[in-house]
């Protein structure tokens, strides 16, 4: 059977989650490997959520937020950008393929982009195979 990755999505309420809804409203099709957690702002994302997700068996983690400058809370995503960049470096140095973690800015009107990103990311994670390093045995 083909490997079907589990992908955790964490999306901000105002842009990416709404963008994901728009993808639905416009009936764009994308793979069903993504499971989205809604938070109010991408800045709510504690890096440990991501470490934990990998431990719990996520094969990939996709974070979505408003475009820089468009944050509903003015500057939240600008902090998030820095924090998640560091998260990425830490994962990478610990040996997790960088391709398993991605941050995308997707606005409420970018349903298309959301679907596109999910398609691309799912494919990418699929190609990387199951994530076994962090996963608790």
């Amino acid at each position, binding site marked *: 059977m083909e490997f079907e990755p589990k992908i955790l999505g964490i999306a901000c309420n105002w842009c990416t989650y709404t963008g994901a809804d728009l993808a639905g409203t416009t009936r764009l099709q994308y793979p069903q490997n993504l499971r989205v957690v809604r938070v109010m702002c991408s800045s709510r994302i504690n890096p440990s959520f991501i470490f934990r997700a990998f431990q719990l068996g996520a094969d990939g983690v996709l974070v979505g937020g408003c475009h*820089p400058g468009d944050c509903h809370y003015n*500057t939240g995503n600008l902090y998030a*950008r820095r924090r998640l*960049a*560091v998260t990425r470096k830490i994962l990478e*140095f*610990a*040996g997790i393929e960088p391709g398993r973690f991605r941050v995308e*800015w997707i606005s409420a009107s970018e349903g298309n982009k959301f679907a596109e990103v999910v398609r691309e990311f799912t494919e990418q994670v699929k190609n990387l195979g199951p994530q076994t*390093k962090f996963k608790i045995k």
Partner: protein
Amino acid sequence: MSINFKQIEDKLKTEARKLLEEGKVSIVLAYGKGYDEKKPMPYVVRKTSDIENIVFNEYCTANMARYLVRYPRGTKIAIAVKPADSRAVVQLIQEEKVKREDLIVLGIPVYGMKNFKTGETIDSKTTCGIYNPVLYDILLGEEVHGQPVVSPYDVLVDYEKMDKDGRWTFWKKELDRCIRCYACRKACPMCYCDPCFIDQNKPKWGEKSPESQGNLMYHLTRFHHLAGRCIDCGECSRACPVDIPLYLFHKKVAKECEEMFGQAAGMKIEDKPALVNFRVEDSDKILE
């Protein structure tokens, strides 16, 4: 060039006496005798009669900045700092844990300190390796001229060369050895949370037993908490009873932060800690 430890010790004693007698500080954080000459201890001078116990030798590696947050806000403190320690002081001032005006910083320029457990010389491999304190009120020795020829990040070269599986194997092996005594976080001048996230039950960030998953969660999160704040003193690794080379990971994160955010931790009082700061012009490239 050579470091005259005896001279520094004498000067430390003189300054400590002066500061206490003039009432400028109520305590002096310095080094004192241990059970063995090669095992000096962090020492808190409260009275002039304590001063005779002050020592300073090549084994006085402890980062005294760790003790600053132990005293109530507003306590006037004199602190003896080596170069990396001075960065910790700067970082703590940035984080408003201590006020600059409450401190008298006694700077000690050094190189060639020795690890009292292994006898190895401490240099830029395991610390930031700089020779002179970045912040001081009184310098207790001759400024060391010249700069270290090697970057504190040179030691990373071999690890960066490893492929991702190699790195994972390396870190898994190292972190699996952790016994969760938490000496690393307790020795760290920047780890002042009490309780630490890992001690909490709600939420339970990670398992408490010393096994792979909890160890990984504890250390990775701690690396993240110290991102942009770690001043590369190497105390965590020296404190570790099972010798996990934590400094490597910290150095790597520090290096990346420096590249991404253009600032090294604990160098300037005016800086804001990199991860609670942003620039509008930060590039999305850092996420690639």
